[in-house]
């Protein structure tokens, strides 16, 4: 083997090694949420940031994505192992407490408060410190078929049937209402009325579709109900308050709807995709669902049976008002980052008005204040509702950003689905949840 052959081999090996190790050489490596509108928006924001004249080559942003499946578990393992593969990483409201020990608080731009508002900024806070910039917000809409509701409101015979059904199942006669005035009882009565198992004349097979799979995200959808009755995870003193009338009422309403057949029998295996498919079939009158479903359910191509008759409003009201669970996806700083200053600068810029508008115009879902969102309202009318609902009805449960928040959701998912499926009593479900949450949140 000649020296030149060896040298050539060495150069090729070095080139291959450089290619394989490219993330490690990134100026500022940002780990993002792959494969959805969030990725598109982040790519646009990173391009805009890199094009800024004051961003040096040493601080340009490179993006890194892993697979969405098991993302949070993999991120947890990486952070715990002290990974330096990324400088900034995605984080979510419900997992901040779990990741906080491996991250550092960040400083946002002076505009952040005016761009996002206080309630949205809190979705990225843990123990009073800001751990990230809230780039995408998730909350819940009540999706309903306005053609069905309008027909119901005009028909006296239907109103009489509605009253009869509500008296039989809910114990009192109710009148059909405009969905924007619904209480949870009105929603339940409407769901029962549009269920063929209850009302054989119903134009839809089911009045609603509940996503009841033993899955933590489904608990987030459910909890706006007990919250509107005053429910919370803990009181101000830190005592777990889940074993309450509010949670009891919420669990009973879901059980009533499931047992009456107002939601498909397989709902106990349903999550986001299954619920959307059920609603999009045209055989469901109304459902609570994540805002992320809005674009598909109102698209004539994707949901031809319901796109033109679907409306979205905030969740129904309880005695305490209307509430929607909110959580944010955002970006924070890895404690073991190799380029902390560069990552800090990017995160600070990402919280500015310019960055938020770029992110919004490129499919992102930031919850922006009314003054800011009006600048993108023509392109993104959905963001107007998102921002308005977040500021008016958004809540995070006490303890909802704690280190054990995900475990609490998991526990609730197991115990509550156990009740809905008839495997245990309501008292047992609430008792076990209270005990488990007390252990987790102590």
């Amino acid at each position, binding site marked *: 083997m000649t020296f030149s052959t060896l040298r050539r081999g060495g150069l090729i090996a070095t080139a291959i090694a450089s290619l394989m190790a490219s993330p490690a050489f990134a100026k500022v490596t940002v780990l993002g949420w792959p494969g959805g509108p969030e990725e598109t928006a982040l790519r646009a924001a990173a391009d805009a940031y890199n094009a800024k004249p004051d961003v040096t080559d040493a601080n340009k942003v490179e993006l890194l994505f892993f697979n969405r499946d098991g993302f949070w578990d993999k991120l947890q393992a990486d952070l715990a192992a002290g990974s330096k593969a990324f400088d900034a990483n995605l984080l979510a409201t419900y997992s901040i407490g779990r990741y906080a020990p491996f991250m550092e608080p960040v400083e946002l731009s002076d505009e952040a408060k005016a761009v996002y508002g206080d309630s949205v900024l809190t979705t990225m806070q843990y123990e009073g410190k800001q751990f990230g910039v809230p780039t995408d917000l998730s909350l819940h809409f009540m999706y309903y078929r306005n053609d069905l509701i309008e027909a119901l409101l005009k028909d006296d015979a239907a109103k009489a049937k509605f009253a009869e059904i509500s008296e039989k199942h809910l114990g009192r006669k109710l009148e059909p209402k405009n969905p924007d005035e619904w209480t949870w009882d009105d929603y339940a009565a409407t769901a029962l009325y549009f269920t063929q198992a209850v009302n054989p004349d119903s134009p839809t097979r089911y009045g609603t579709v509940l996503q009841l799979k033993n899955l933590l995200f489904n608990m987030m959808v459910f909890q706006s109900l007990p919250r509107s009755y005053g429910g919370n995870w803990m009181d101000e003193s830190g005592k777990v308050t889940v074993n309450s009338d509010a949670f009891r009422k919420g669990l009973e309403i879901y059980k009533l709807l499931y047992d009456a057949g107002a939601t498909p029998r397989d709902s106990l295996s349903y999550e986001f995709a299954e619920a959307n*498919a059920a609603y999009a079939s045209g055989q469901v009158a109304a459902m609570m669902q994540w805002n992320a479903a809005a674009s598909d359910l109102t698209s004539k191509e994707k949901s031809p049976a319901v796109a033109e008759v679907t409306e979205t409003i905030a969740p129904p009201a309880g005695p305490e008002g209307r509430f929607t669970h909110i959580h944010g996806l955002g970006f924070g700083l890895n404690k073991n980052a190799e380029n902390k200053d560069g990552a800090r600068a990017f995160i600070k810029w990402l919280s500015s008005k310019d960055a938020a508008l770029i992110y919004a115009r490129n499919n992102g879902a930031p919850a922006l204040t009314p003054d800011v969102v009006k600048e993108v309202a023509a392109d993104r009318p959905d963001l107007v509702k998102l921002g308005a609902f977040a500021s008016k009805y958004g809540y995070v449960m006490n303890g909802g950003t704690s280190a054990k928040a995900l475990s609490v959701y998991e526990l609730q998912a197991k115990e509550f689905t156990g009740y809905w499926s008839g495997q245990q009593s309501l008292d047992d479900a609430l008792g076990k949840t209270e005990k488990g949450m007390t252990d987790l949140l102590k």
Partner: protein
Amino acid sequence: MTTPSQRAPSSEFRLLAVPLVLFLLVFLGFPALVNLVYSVSEVSFETLRSPEITGFANFTAVWTDSSFWQASWFSFRFGLLTALLECALGLFLAIFLSPLIEKRSWLMAILMLPLMVAPALIGLMYRFVLHEFVGPVPYYLWTWFGASFSFLGPASAFWTLVVVETLQWTPFAFLLFHMAYQAIPKEIIEASAMDGAHYRHRLWYVELPLMAPTIVVALLIRFIDGFRVFDNVYVLTGSGAGGSTASLSIYIYEAFFKQGAIGKAVAASVILFAVSFAVLYGLNALAARRKGAR
């Protein structure tokens, strides 16, 4: 006189065994040691490098956790039922289709297709095949009978999972039995026929005894596979309403990642390892005793 197998290992043998031993120590021994330490420690993702030894609290937590026993019972029932069904079906197909396969061997490729699909994808596929508004099965049930059957409801989820697993893995049992059936010497079959044995007698007294070792191995492999099931069940139903479809693998995964209870998850896996080892050791000893008795 000593036979070659009774002689002490030579230095060359020892030298050649070093890479294998090192490999086992690094990739099996070290993780096993870490697991043993974690199983008697209070450990979280924050303290992975500095676990605090606390004794057997994790084992007690697992032992007294009703979810652990629920998952163990699910795994046992699931493993046993699917192993029996797959082997029964596989055996029936291997014998019933034998004349056809002999003439048209390309049919084997078609019958093996389910094995080519990853279990997680099978779960995903059935998630939509069985969906009331998307899947073809509920569609035809509704069209023909006006009924909406719940495939993944609390009462039926277990049996649906059993059917899904059986449909995917029966071809594996079929393949083993087909090979074993083909390996039976033709002379023996012909001799029994000449002795006037009826087909049923030939099957019962000649063919099945000759296939018995393969049947035992197939049952064991399928039981182990069914017992440790994860992918398709997790994709189809997760851990199920109230944890009703959580297998032991799912229990351990959820304890580790979802609850962050690392010590508890590792303790459960140590218990599982110990029980598996005891069962396999017992079976091995039983087989050795039977061999010695012959």
